[in-house]
């Protein structure tokens, strides 16, 4: 079985546990293994690069050094981790003085020359959409998703592997291959508000509602994401709640890996769906998918 190094990212151990678990399980089902990078640390997220550039190179630098030791390619599922690791790698490999500086700080060689790939790319490359279609045992009929990449998967321009940074289509194609009726919309790569979630909730609420309204207008009945921050903001920030927690929209939000597990007829999705703040089960029951 082909094995990749795997960078889980902090969210996948906590609020987005269902993303991490479904990613691992689906990969195995598809015939490749994700082996967690030993003792990985947080990529620094927005807070590092927004306040200290050298830190934003060195925190990923320690992870890149570990990936280098292991060899091969590195698979990531969180769009923000993916973006940060890839940017740090590019700067380290491009500029020998940066590489030397990071090496001194980290105490190990950060020049990882393997590829950093998002799981979406791996599925397309390793399995291929035609072969995936044949593995589907429960077609996602009745689901009308819009795919929501969020901003960081497709930036900076030119860094994404197999997809168009202005109009990425890989997730649409993947969902279509599994029998869903994918809807078109123009909000695929809009930002959800990211790290302003706690500090300027008002701003994030505005962006999140705009995304839901656009999805509804596109006649979608769910939103599919590939980033834990996107899902968290979409589920948590439909209104500014204090004591109460109010949902303005009933469109469920899925990780693409959860729907893959469902379509592949795997055990597990029920348990993951129960963790969502917007319960997707009523929609799935109505469509005979659960």
């Amino acid at each position: 079985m082909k094995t990749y190094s795997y960078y889980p990212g902090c969210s996948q151990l906590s609020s987005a546990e269902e993303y991490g678990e479904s990613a691992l399980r689906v990969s195995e089902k598809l015939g490749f293994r994700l082996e967690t990078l030993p003792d990985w640390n947080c990529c620094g997220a927005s807070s590092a690069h927004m306040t200290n550039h050298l830190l934003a190179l060195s925190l990923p630098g320690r992870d890149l050094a570990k990936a280098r030791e292991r060899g091969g390619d590195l698979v990531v599922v969180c769009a923000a981790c993916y973006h940060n690791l890839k940017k740090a790698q590019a700067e380290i490999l491009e500029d020998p003085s940066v590489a030397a500086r990071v090496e001194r700080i980290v105490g190990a060689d950060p020049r990882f020359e393997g590829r950093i790939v998002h799981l979406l790319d791996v599925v397309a490359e390793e399995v291929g959409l035609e072969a995936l279609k044949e593995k589907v045992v429960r077609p996602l009929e009745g689901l009308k998703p819009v795919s929501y990449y969020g901003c960081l998967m497709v930036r900076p321009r030119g860094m994404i592997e197999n997809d168009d940074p202005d109009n990425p289509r890989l997730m649409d194609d993947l969902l279509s291959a599994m029998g869903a009726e994918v809807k078109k919309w123009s909000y695929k790569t809009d930002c959800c508000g990211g790290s302003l979630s706690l500090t300027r909730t008002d701003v994030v609420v505005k962006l999140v509602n705009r995304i839901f309204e656009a999805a509804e207008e596109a006649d979608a009945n769910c939103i599919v994401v590939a980033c834990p921050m996107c899902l968290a903001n979409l589920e948590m920030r439909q209104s500014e709640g204090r004591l109460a927690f109010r949902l303005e929209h009933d469109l469920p939000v899925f990780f693409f890996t959860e729907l893959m597990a469902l379509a592949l007829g795997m055990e597990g999705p029920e348990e993951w769906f129960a963790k969502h703040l917007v319960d997707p089960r009523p929609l799935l029951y109505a469509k005979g998918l659960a």
Partner: protein
Amino acid sequence: MINALSTALEKEVEERSGEKPRLCYQCGKCSTGCLFNFAMDILPHQVMKLVQYGQRERLLGSHTIWICASCETCTARCPNDIDVARVMDTLRAMALEGGVAPAERNIPIFHRCFLGNIQATGRISEPVLMGAYKTLSGDLFSDIGLAVRMLKKGKIKLIPSVVRGSREVRRIFREAKE
């Protein structure tokens, strides 16, 4: 009003970010495409211009540098290949280092808590981060309803995941002080 020109800021920004705001010809694509423009006091293309004019206080004391969420839409769309988001990063770092009172009080507090969490355990633990942020910002009462829902759904892990090489992580923080 701008009544004196200085190139010092432009030079400093260029040196630190590797970007050249002077290449900006004010087409405004960054500002029209910015999803956060409604909450900004200075629009991104104006930031580029004010860097050229050396308007340090106005920029470092602006809401804009903190409201920018670094989604990089501006960078992706700049016809002259300026990494506008990188310039924003640089201005934020300069504001912090210069001890400028931030126009958005809570955002730098959040970043401090976030990085403090990584420094301590190597990874983010959501309850640790939330606790630190709530204490330091004094914003104790928002999101109580949400926290209850998340706990019920098992979305909050009370035991943090800790990196074994915590000394290595602390060393990174020590050495990366610019």
